[in-house]
């Protein structure tokens, strides 16, 4: 036991590790409240309180970044802080959506919340990891609760199967990662990312190269990038919608957060191939989404496409490794990723939130055809959905556009023009299906026989309104986000 790291732990409580501590505390509190009849009434307040606390301390972290802690295995810089905010947001949205979502599993909501609040702990560890071990722990802390959450509606086939699929493929991905990490370790003799950055020669050996490839494979799997994307539609569709929200917004963010940390380890030559993968992902994700009839599955495929664009940013960062512009482009990539993920979290989270909200009126509301003509009876929800979809499609005046701008500018600045153009053109396909949803909602008549959906969910309404406001704010007045971050 090293005395220094204990001190770190102590001082980190008000610094780098504070968000983690808030969440861990929240986890404990949930568990305690759940089994203590006196405190059970407090349970609903615990998760948001812990999340807000974490958010607050993350904001502190952005303002006053701290250096590496825990013996250099974790870094609580502003990047970690910013990603933490996204994770907290994702969890908060998922938590909010989960209220009154489960009918048969109502009695297990305590377990649900405990699992839910564990996930961001893992995410934060991934985002701040400076060491493969920490990343691995984070990954598992994120994945295992999600396996359970995906299968949370255990009386439903699709939920259980989603959990199982996610679990089996996830475990497989972990195995790939570990094998890769082992090979890298064997080649370079370290698992520390900072040290790996300088071990270019060792990583250039076949052993190191294969190791890197396996690690990248598993990371891309987690991010849902082609050709590791096939689990995404199944799992997103089958999981309970709040869990889908968490996966779409949180898991993806965490995977890319670590990819960003990991990018300098990769050789610059890997940048262009990664870019090609990114564009293929963009294309396939969008094409896959084009033919979907289920909203959640559609959003899943579109999520794959978004992962493609984010990978393009990573590729840009990789290309710049070792060049004179590295710092600039890395900076551009970081800001692009953060902003994009933030905007995506609000838009996708908002859209899935509306789906979850509508599911209260009937579970078949995940099917697109059930939304037909909704604009005429529930214009608010319809307008919200439209706004979220436009943001996902990257139409200006929404956060999605600025995200797109930043992402492509990272690619353009890394001299990946052809890829940027191709990638941009895939957005046409994307708008094709987003607009199809809009058409269904606004431009097709609502069958007379259909009753007006019940929408008595103040929390869902609040969250949707919040997301919509933020999507617009990010699009129109992005200064409040861009300013503190960069």
């Amino acid at each position, binding site marked *: 036991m090293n005395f220094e790291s204990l001190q770190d732990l102590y001082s980190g409580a008000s610094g780098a590790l504070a968000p983690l501590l808030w969440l861990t505390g929240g986890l404990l509190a949930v568990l305690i409240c759940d089994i203590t009849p006196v405190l059970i009434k407090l349970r609903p307040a615990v998760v948001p309180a812990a999340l807000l606390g974490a958010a607050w301390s993350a904001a502190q972290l952005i303002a006053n970044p701290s250096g590496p802690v825990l013996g250099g295995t974790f870094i609580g810089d502003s990047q970690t802080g910013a990603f933490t905010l996204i994770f907290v947001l994702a969890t908060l949205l998922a938590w909010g959506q989960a209220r009154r979502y489960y009918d048969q599993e109502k009695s297990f909501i305590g377990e649900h919340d405990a699992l839910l609040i564990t996930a961001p702990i893992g995410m934060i560890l991934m985002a701040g990891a400076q060491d493969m071990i920490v990343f691995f722990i984070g990954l598992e802390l994120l994945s295992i609760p999600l396996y359970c959450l995906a299968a949370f509606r255990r009386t439903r086939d699709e939920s259980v199967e989603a959990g199982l699929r996610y679990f089996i493929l996830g475990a497989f991905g972990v195995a790939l990662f570990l094998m890769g990490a*082992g090979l890298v370790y064997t080649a370079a003799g370290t698992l520390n990312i900072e040290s790996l950055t300088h071990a270019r020669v060792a990583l250039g050996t076949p052993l190191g190269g294969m190791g890197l490839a396996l690690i990248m494979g598993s990371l891309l799997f987690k991010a849902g990038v082609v050709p590791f994307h096939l689990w995404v539609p199944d799992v997103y569709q089958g999981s309970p919608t709040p869990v889908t929200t968490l996966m779409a917004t949180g898991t993806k963010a965490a995977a890319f957060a670590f990819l960003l940390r990991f990018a300098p380890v990769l050789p610059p030559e890997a940048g262009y191939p990664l870019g090609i993968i990114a564009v293929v992902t963009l294309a396939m994700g969008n094409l896959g989404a084009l033919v979907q009839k289920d909203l959640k599955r559609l959003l899943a495929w579109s999520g794959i496409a978004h992962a493609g664009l984010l990978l393009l940013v990573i590729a840009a960062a990789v290309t710049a490794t070792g060049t004179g512009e590295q710092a600039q482009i890395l900076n551009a990539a970081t800001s692009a990723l953060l902003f994009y993920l933030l905007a995506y979290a609000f838009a996708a989270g908002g859209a899935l939130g509306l789906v979850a909200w509508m599911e209260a009126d009937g579970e078949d509301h995940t099917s697109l055809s059930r939304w037909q003509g909704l604009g005429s009876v529930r214009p608010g929800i319809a307008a919200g959905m439209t706004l979220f979809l436009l943001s996902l499609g990257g139409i200006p005046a929404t956060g999605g556009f600025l995200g797109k701008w930043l992402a492509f500018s990272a690619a353009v600045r890394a001299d990946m023009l052809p890829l940027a153009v191709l990638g941009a053109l895939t957005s046409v396909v994307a708008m094709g299906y987003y607009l199809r949803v809009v058409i269904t909602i606004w431009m097709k008549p609502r069958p007379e026989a259909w009753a007006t959906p019940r929408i008595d969910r103040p929390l869902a309404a609040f969250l949707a309104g919040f997301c919509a406001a933020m999507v617009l704010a990010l699009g129109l007045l992005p200064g409040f986000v861009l300013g503190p971050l960069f």
Partner: protein
Amino acid sequence: MNVPSEHLLILAAILFAIGLGGFLLRRNVIVVLMSIELMLNAANLVFLAGARQHASESGHWLPDGPVMVTFVIAVAAVEAAVGLALVIALFRRKQTVSLDQLSPTSD
């Protein structure tokens, strides 16, 4: 007896390949879980082989590999638990543990 590190790596590769083969080819969830365990352990072997090799090359002990192995073992246990729970849930719904019996998803 001094086993060369390469041998350990080759052994790990064989184990990993067996695990991979089982994962890809077998349809029984239990067997698939076992295959994954095998792959994890192959990875563990690589970590330890790496640690040993570096210790002998540089003369001092690098804790990263063994520490990682410790975590992997712990995590593998958790995964097994969660995995089996999911298998039970599946079995309750479908009276089968065959992956082929999962419902097709694409339309």
